[in-house]
């Protein structure tokens, strides 16, 4: 599955962001520019995949 960011904008001015297909902290890095642009983050939840190993480009695995 390729990585994607899904945003759902509610009619009350709130937005939910969800990173899909990212491993580890790549999700935080990819979504930060949107949080900075949109407003104030009120909550953040890490999902199981956040704690999975991040595969580096050279093939080595960085343990978390």
């Amino acid at each position, binding site marked *: 599955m390729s990585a994607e960011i899904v945003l759902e904008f509610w009619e009350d001015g709130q937005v939910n*962001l*969800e990173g899909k297909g990212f491993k580890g902290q790549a999700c935080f890095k990819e979504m930060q520019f949107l949080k900075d642009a949109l407003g104030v983050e009120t909550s953040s939840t890490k999902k199981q995949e956040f704690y999975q190993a991040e595969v580096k480009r050279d093939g080595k695995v960085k343990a978390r």
Partner: protein
Amino acid sequence: MSHYSEVVIELTDEGCLVAALSRLGFKGKVEVHREAQPLYGYQGDVRAQKAHVIIRQQHVGRAANDLGFERQTDGKYRVWVSDYDQKYNKYNDAWMGRLKQAYGVEKTRAEARKKGYRVSEKKLDDGRIQLVLRR
């Protein structure tokens, strides 16, 4: 999947604010000023409030006052809507929510484009607007 966030939207980008107002039916009816300009009441009286982004009363509704967005020193826009227009012309909290929704969509599209994302947009049955960003 790895991360959820919830964000409350703030109005800070002039171009995206104007685009959001267009989405809500004010296309071609929005004034944009470098310096804040006075707002006028329904009888043509000058009000104490000033704004950089203005929708004049004739576009707002019956017996309406100007509707304005004043840029603060921190870059955020303060919204000026009269009590009358909140109550009788429906520029209330629900309208502000829809404006922030439209602004969020426009701001996300603009920022995502700069980062090289492709964006798809879908309106959901319950009023939510969904954007999916892919590279």
